[in-house]
């Protein structure tokens, strides 16, 4: 049980790379925080700084009221689950789980008791005497989590723990991690580049880009109310449709396309209009005309891809648009349809700064 606080944390590597830039964050007791961002954005570095595996160049880290910048990883009382599990290959599952406790000086009976309890929680009590190479990927993942929970740490750290699993198992483990975290109530930080994982697991989500936190908040807030173009394009699957536009005082213009209904935008500046696939709908009175190239059937809904007439992307080609329909609406390839959009959900950004205007 612990609160974690980061104040103005920076990381500069000896080669000059500035991996983390002035991160401030407060994590409440028992909260599940997810760091999400593209690879190389500094999210793993930030996690590893909390773990004590990377030094902090500038700024302070606190767990509860204690500054832990110079505390060794073991004494921070955090536990980490690694992407490749990092199980000790020569030890049995029992050995793997008890190694940390042994180093801490717990008594034999105590260790055995804790290991059994943790193994039961994770349903791995039948494998305790096996070695990691006799286990499947999912079982190894459980052992890695067992090694983390057996120590009853103040903070759980997860470094892309599910990316080595197949899709089905990933979904299943995701749910289990969430349940386990709820049950144990341990403050957790989870790093992933998978936005679905991020959305589903997080109490609060931190989108990290270029070493900085772009935005932090509840997943649905980030989805509905992104502060920047980066957050809007990163959160949501399929990605938000982005149209390069300019405002002439009355219309947003892209090529020959004119989109009305917006007010108070800066004139003659490069803007980006974001329309999420689910906010577009077929409407014979609609202003947008789309020619369908591809229909993806996902069961519950259909994703329609096509080119938007009039609008051009940066290369001068017709703009690709994606639209989400429910399963009974299934236009065929080659059809031309009219679309209208949900005005209240449209997002407008300044292209250069990436900041949201509407």
């Amino acid at each position: 049980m612990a609160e974690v606080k980061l104040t103005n944390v920076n990381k500069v590597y000896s080669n000059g790379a500035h991996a983390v830039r002035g991160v401030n964050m407060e994590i409440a007791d028992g909260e599940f925080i997810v760091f999400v961002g593209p690879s190389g954005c500094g999210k793993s570095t930030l996690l590893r700084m909390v773990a004590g595996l990377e030094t902090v160049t500038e700024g302070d880290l606190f767990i509860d009221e204690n500054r832990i910048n110079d505390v060794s990883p073991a004494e921070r009382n955090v536990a980490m689950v690694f992407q490749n599990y990092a199980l000790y290959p020569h030890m049995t599952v029992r050995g793997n789980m008890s190694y940390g406790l042994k180093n801490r000086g717990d008594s034999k009976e105590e260790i055995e008791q804790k290991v059994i309890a943790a193994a039961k929680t994770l349903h791995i009590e039948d494998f305790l005497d096996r070695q990691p190479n006799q286990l499947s990927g999912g079982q190894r993942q459980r052992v890695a989590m067992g090694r983390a929970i057996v120590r009853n740490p103040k903070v759980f750290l997860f470094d892309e723990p599910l990316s080595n699993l197949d899709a089905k198992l990933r979904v299943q483990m995701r749910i289990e991690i969430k349940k386990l975290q709820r049950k144990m109530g341990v403050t957790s930080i989870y790093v992933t580049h998978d936005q679905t994982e991020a959305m589903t697991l997080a109490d609060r989500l931190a989108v990290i880009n270029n070493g900085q936190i772009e935005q932090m908040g509840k997943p649905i807030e980030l989805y509905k109310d992104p502060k920047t173009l980066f957050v809007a394009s990163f959160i949501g699957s399929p990605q938000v449709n982005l149209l390069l536009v300019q405002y002439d005082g009355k219309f947003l213009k892209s090529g020959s396309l004119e989109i009305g209904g917006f007010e108070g935008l800066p004139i003659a500046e490069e803007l980006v209009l974001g329309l999420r696939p689910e906010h577009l709908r077929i409407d014979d009175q609609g202003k947008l005309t789309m020619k369908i190239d591809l229909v993806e059937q996902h069961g519950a809904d259909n994703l329609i891809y096509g080119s938007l007439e009039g609008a051009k992307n940066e290369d001068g080609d017709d703009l690709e648009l994606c639209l989400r329909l429910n399963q009974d609406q299934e236009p065929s390839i080659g059809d031309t349809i009219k679309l209208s959009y949900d005005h209240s959900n449209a997002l407008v950004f300044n292209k250069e700064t990436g900041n949201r205007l509407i």
Partner: protein
Amino acid sequence: MLKLSWHAISGHLILILGAIFMTAPVWVAFMSSTHSAETLFREGLQAWPGGHFFENYNEVLFVEGGVMKRVTASMMLWNSLLLGIGFAIGKVVISTLAAYAIVYFRFRLATPLFWIIFMTLLLPLEVRIIPSYEVVAGMGLLDTHTGLILPLIASATGTFYFRQFYKSVPEELLEAARLDGANAWQFFIDILIPISKTMIAAILIIMFVVGWNQYLWPLIMTTNEDNYTLVIGIKQIYQVLSEGGELPQFQKAYALTILATLPPVIVVLVFQSWFVKGLVESEK
């Protein structure tokens, strides 16, 4: 059918010839060691067993001989074993530690140091034998087991192998151990050594054979017959043979040769499965 069997026969013929070619000298040496000195002197090498097996081996192993009349083969066997085992263990200990330092402690000179160690691969013992002798003599270690083993145990080859292996160990293993509260020493003993045990076994076996077969260094180092190794002993016996006025004791020389080949053969036979595993296995 006929064609196939011809194929098989010719193949086997070649293999049998090869096997005979390889084993015949050993066979002849072994058989000759079971004859009396007179038979060998009169009739030359023997291809079939004679009646003096127990007599000859007993004499070689337990009757004191040599210039001072104090050396027995069992003593030399013991010395050789000490040299082989000490050499192998010493090399493994030194090279695992050296590789550990180079790979896991990122001090400034790690890479240049490694290349310096690597370059010493190019320098055989013979090049540095006189300075080494000087140093050992200066330390008063001539004619001791320590002096025999210590100067040989630094191993560029071993360090190189272990370095490559440690580099292939995932970084996360070290990080997991750090989070589990292991210090540098515990990580080495609890994690790194156990996961490299097949590798260690392979190096131990190779180094045991190399140590066992050391010739030049023990020859220079040992003046006291008590410290002779088997390989030196064989050489001494041949020397006596060519000088002495007595009937040449060829049967003893052969017996000694057979004794000298036995331990390495046993070690390799017993540990060969480990040995192969260590060379081909890559840890997951």
